[in-house]
């Protein structure tokens, strides 16, 4: 967010500010909550995990001599008797971006200490996530029904199924974990834990609406990964 106010510290803008922040005592990320800094570093690490998955996928797809199935056809869905390419994926993308938007607003209202709005928006995000997971389950069962397995598929290179189930599975796990936490945090917001600075279950830290931003970072990251999966897996 915008520069915090710190007693005895004059902020400089841009790269000069970066040098000054880095060279200063106590904190390097001025005004950034510990939990938020942790989430950022964790996401950086997670980025490397997903990058390794996608790089492996690129290497695997690039070096097979058997033709790769055309995702546009494999993931097509019949709407009123007409096959529409990637229909389900498009709706899933829509749902995930919608939930990302509600999350962003939840963070904003959280910082404004608007308990009701924040709570409802977190809940809406959770429901969006749940819808996404449900649709993914539908997509998996449809493909399995069509004979796609991690080790083989009727459309072409066997690695197609392997990478599909592994990458979307890993992403889906992230979404599911996110949904669980969204429900928990929605409860915590409604229960007023952040207004009365109640300590968490496993921590001695006081409750603060910054936790909604931390959760938001995770949720946006899940969306971010989906952007890359959408581009590389479904559009390539």
């Amino acid at each position, binding site marked *: 967010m915008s520069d915090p106010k710190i007693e005895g510290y004059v902020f400089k803008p841009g790269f000069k500010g970066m040098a000054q922040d880095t*060279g200063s005592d106590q904190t390097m990320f001025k005004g950034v909550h510990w939990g938020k800094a942790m989430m950022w570093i964790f996401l950086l690490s997670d980025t490397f995990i997903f990058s390794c998955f996608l790089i492996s996928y690129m290497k695997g797809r690039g070096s097979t001599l058997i033709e790769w199935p055309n995702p546009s056809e494999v993931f097509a869905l019949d709407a009123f008797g007409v096959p529409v390419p990637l229909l389900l994926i498009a709706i899933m993308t829509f749902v995930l971006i919608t939930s990302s938007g509600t999350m962003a607003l939840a963070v904003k209202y959280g910082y404004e200490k608007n308990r009701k709005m924040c709570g409802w928006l977190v809940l809406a995000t959770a429901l969006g996530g749940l819808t996404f997971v449900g649709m993914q389950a539908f997509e998996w069962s449809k493909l399995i029904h069509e004979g796609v397995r991690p080790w083989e598929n009727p459309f072409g290179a066997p690695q197609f199924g392997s990478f599909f189930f592994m990458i979307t599975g890993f992403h889906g796990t992230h979404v599911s974990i996110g949904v669980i936490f969204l429900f928990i945090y929605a409860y915590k917001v409604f229960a007023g834990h952040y207004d009365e600075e109640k300590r968490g279950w496993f921590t001695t830290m006081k409750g603060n609406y910054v936790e909604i931003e931390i959760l938001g970072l995770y949720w946006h990251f899940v969306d971010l990964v989906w952007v890359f999966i959408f581009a590389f897996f479904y559009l390539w």
Partner: protein
Amino acid sequence: MSEDFNDNKTIQAQSSETISGGSGASPDMDYVRPAEVGDQDLYHGHSFITKWIFCQDAKVIGVQYFLLATFTGIIGLILSWLMRLQLGFPGAAGFMTAEHYYQFVTMHGMIMVVYFLTALFLGGFGNYLIPLMVGARDMVFPYLNMVSFWMFFIAVGVLLASFFVPGGPTGAGWTLYPPQTILEGTPGSGMGILLMCLSLILFVAGFTMGGLNYLITVLQARTRGMTLMRMPLTVWGIFTATVLAMLAFPALLVGALMMSLDKVLGTSFFMPTILKAGEVLEYGGGSPILFQHLFWFFGHPEVYIVALPAFGIISDLISVHSRKNIFGYRMMVWAIVGIGGLSFFVWAHHMYVSGMNPWFGFFFATTTLIIAVPTAMKVYNWILTLWRGNIRMNTVMLWCLGFIVTFVNGGITGIFLGNVTVDVPLSDTYFVIAHFHMVMGIAPLMVIMGAVYHWFPLVAGRFLDEKLGKWHFWTTFLGAYSIYFPMHYLGFIGVPRRYFEMYDSPYVTSATGMNEFISLAAFLVGAAQFILIFNIIKTLKTGKPAGSNPWKACSLEWLTPTVPPEHGNWGDRLPVVHRWAYDYSVPGAKEDFITQTTPPSEVADTGVEKT
């Protein structure tokens, strides 16, 4: 954004409030900004279980990590004895089959690199020293820190469980190269490899929790006045190594996961078409080289995950015991950071003869030799720290000197192997074994031992016995050197590694005697480590009490109100830091060290150059 900026009216804090003690010669001189973050609330354990087992105190967690890693390390040591027994005296151990031999090789390698060295440096020393050295009360997320240790505990449990499953532990070599890792013909290709992958995944998950703690503590929870450039190099080393771990372990995680899927579900990530015993297996189209890339994208940073904390710790030990500031502190910091950054661009120098795209050789040889420059600078700075110092020849210093000799030796052979052409005849031979044991086995071990002798008075409040310590050092150093120095020459003859029976061409038969000698030395060195255990047990009760700051060091960990430091480290008030951690032998000062918390006004009339 710019509007917010203009709002930033700074308020000069009242100096009387911020001076910590001090003679008050010139208050402005001692001004340190007030705390940005409120004091940390800690959960204090009440029962035995919350105080010593499921404990949230980083110091206890550090000791727990240390003990469990040492336990695992002793298992690794015993495995190495069994290997050397087979190599030096084939057939001496009746139960030793080729299967067992390869299982021992694999488990020895994996245990020593991941479960011993990584856990010990980052989990052990990191947990104990980071909060103390940066002046924090504890790690920033103590609960997560506790979970991190117990994940490590489970990971070790799973790893050791693989000794008792049908087929035994995996015998695929610690690099776990597919396809052989999961095919018949390699020992432990069933449950063994699955448990290994599971254990690694658990280790990575647990380590991530710990690593986030170390990073955020260093970045966001330093005490007042503690800038990054005033941190002891130990913290720099552990910090940078943790950054590497956070970014490198993902590749291992992904590799382990994909390999498990290949094994369990029959996917073909790493498995091409394979003909085995006259039958074509149901695999096809995968790429074994991909695993090697993933593994070494983790594996090379892993080398520095072990080396960088060692670099940091040794710098501090040499400085304290030479009574002289570390030479070229800035250069040392930038070298650590530079080595860390570069380590992500050199991974395929482990793969020069792996059949990867041959053009990669140019790229990776160049990046690898570039990394030699900052490493060499560190070596120069260590010996230049000794130069014109006032060197205490105690056990700690001996370990430091031993480190310099073994590290320079192993570093130089690293230049052989990093230079692509020289690597071709030497790779996969005993030269490689000798090189990496010297540089990331023995050299870090010297640092660990030096660090134990150095910080034991802080942890336990008593000195370790010097006489036993010297025996321990000389047997370890001379023994280990005589294991690995001659071993390079086996590599020159062309003896390949991972041979159950030594290659017995006419060229090597002459080396039988040397082989036996190496094995004997290995038994001796292993046994010598028990001197330390004896020493610790003996001195815990009867050792000379150390008191506060026994080595007359400058850095914060020695300046706690109680020795050993209690939970929360600092009593009522956090320390305030005014200088770097290396103001030794400042001209004009009363003593030959000025602690980090000494305000400038107290030493205004000395020749302090840098604060």
